[in-house]
């Protein structure tokens, strides 16, 4: 589904990704872990096409297409979804209008007619129920005045609406209390199927207790320095990252 080869990227002229190689197939769950500043969020931003980052080298194929040649919205419409670490507030724009623009943007890309208002509202009702979010969220402006937990739940709600094939969760567990974490993680798990793949970017074990990874990668200094199974998570939880730093000096 996704193949990353020798990916290098910079922000403000500083090289953050220094040769990432990673292959993700349908149905898989990958965890990307690593100490602060190792490039985890940069990787997600580059894959989503954030214009603040510049790709200097490498190749990314998504469903056989050249991902890096696509605009951010086309990447989204091709099925790439990024759950933001810091979801952005858009005052005055209701979640309903926002999602309608998103859904119909995707349908247009796929050559489908836009959903009618009633079809859309029906879909929205179903998905809200599915991810256990309360009703008034969709009447509020996008993320405006949302608590940390509400914002993250809102990301999962959008994921449920858009049904992406590649789901990238960027530090989705940060700022969540244990109940919100459960709801968010359950949502992600319930939406998992053999056709989609999941990338979980995190520092901690706790989210991975719910979303069990098939592979765990350690990102350090812009490179994936280690790939293992879920047992690696426990070691990191117990020993921290110091041993990685020692093993892979700058």
């Amino acid at each position, binding site marked *: 589904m996704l193949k990353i080869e020798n990916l290098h990227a910079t922000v403000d002229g500083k090289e953050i990704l220094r040769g990432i190689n990673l292959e993700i197939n349908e149905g898989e769950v990958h965890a990307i872990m690593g100490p602060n500043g190792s490039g985890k969020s940069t990787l997600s931003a580059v894959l989503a096409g954030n214009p603040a980052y510049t790709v200097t080298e490498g190749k990314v194929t998504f469903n056989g297409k050249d991902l890096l040649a696509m605009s951010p*919205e086309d990447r989204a*419409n091709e099925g790439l979804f990024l759950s933001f670490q810091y979801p952005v507030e858009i005052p005055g724009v209701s979640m309903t209008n926002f999602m309608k*623009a*998103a859904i119909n*943007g995707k349908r247009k890309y796929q050559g489908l007619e836009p959903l009618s208002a009633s079809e859309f509202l029906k879909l929205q009702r179903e998905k809200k129920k599915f991810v256990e979010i309360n009703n008034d969220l969709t009447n509020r402006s996008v993320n405006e005045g949302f608590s940390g937990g509400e914002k993250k739940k809102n990301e999962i709600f959008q994921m449920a609406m858009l049904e992406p094939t590649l789901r990238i969760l960027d530090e989705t567990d940060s700022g969540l209390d244990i109940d919100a974490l459960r709801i968010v993680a359950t949502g992600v798990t319930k939406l998992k199927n053999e056709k989609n793949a999941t990338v979980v970017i995190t520092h901690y074990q706790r989210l991975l207790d719910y979303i069990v990874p098939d592979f765990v990668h350690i990102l350090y200094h812009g490179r994936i320095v280690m790939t293992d199974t879920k047992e690696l998570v426990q070691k990191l939880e117990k020993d921290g990252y110091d041993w990685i730093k020692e093993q892979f000096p700058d």
Partner: protein
Amino acid sequence: MKEEKNIEQIGGEEYKYGFTSDIETEVIPKGISEDVVRLISAKKEEPEFMLDFRLKAYRHWLKLYEEKGVPTWAHLEIPEIDFQDIIYYAAPKKKEQLKSLDEVDPAIRETFDKLGISLDEQKKLSNVAVDAVLDSSSVKTTFHAELAKKGIIFCSISEAIKNHPDLVKQYLGSVVPHTDNFYAALNAAVFSDGSFVYIPKGVRCPMELSTYFRINAMNTGQFERTLIVADDDSYVSYLEGCTAPQRDENQLHAAIVEIVVMNNAEVKYSTVQNWYPGDKDGKGGIYNFVTKRAICKGDNSKISWTQVETGSAITWKYPSCILKGDNSVGEFYSVAVTNNHQQADTGTKMIHLGKNTKSTIISKGISAGYSQNSYRGLVRVAKDADGARNYSQCDSLLMGDKCGAHTFPYADINNPTAQVEHEATTSKISEDQIFYCNQRGIKTEDAIGLIVNGYAKDVLSKLPLEFAVEAQKLLQISLENSVG
């Protein structure tokens, strides 16, 4: 950062209505003088009182012009205007009185069609009566008969001068006297046409009244004059929409709108203004210097101004409310968009004279490109205006960092019981917001439309529905290519 650079690369979408129609036009020579004023009045076969009205105004204007020159207090860079280089009167050559639409010049009909205005029966289905002003002379007024049944007068001001001289004499210049300001004096001297509305006592106008203005003849300044009188217990909603053909030379437009609202009456006046703003380098475009004012003369009367301003190179406009009647209400809802090199200095005046008068000001400025967008508002509470209340909210939205947004609120409160509130915010459309939308599959253009319409929602919701849809599209079009 790449996106930031893009934000600065401001382009404007090509003006869609840049065409001229080939209609035979009768024009008088360039320039202004007492003779020109007399000529206009004569051509329009006006009664004596109108000529006096015009001459008085002309003499006042001349005095202002010679002593003080053009007004410069607004936050605008106005190139020098040569008032002798303007043609003050142009009217499509008249055939005999028209009985049906078939008799309207096909070229004129075509112009309307291009603008999406139809004079035919379709409008009846959409419940809109249109008094179309092509250049300066009214071509055709529809729904006359239907409105006449209710005693409503909706016609060109020229016809009103001929057919309803008493009403015109009583109210013309009563809200905006020719001494009001430089451009008001000029307009009073040379106005060529405009609309007149009279709603009799107790009548609720059954449809939205709508006027489309269109500047058409080369080098012709437009001086529209609109007068609306709503008698006791009446109601009317009036729509004004404008487009103009593309021009290289700057075109001066100095209109006056006067509204008189009597006891328990209500007038809603909505404008969507989309005149040629000039090209992306700031060349050409309309100068729009308008004086709009309403007086709530009667008790419990209400006036509501709603405007969406996206066009013109320079806009100088302050639709105002004089709240004279006790318990009268004035409202001003405005969205002003400036892009490229456009300049707008717009706002309102709320003059509280009566007791328990209330006013609301919601102003939303959107600046992009190299444009300058100013809100200028005055809230005045007179000594005897016990219990007056005002709420003002002035928000500015910036796109990119080459544009400017300015707020000039003035308050002049002379009564201790007055309650006056003012809130102001400034925000930016951030790259993060755009990217967030992009990541959900929403194109940058659509994202801007979404964000801007969300921002302007409080104002757009005040427009009549068919206008609101048009206005939403217009906002998005005006800002196309301004980010990303």
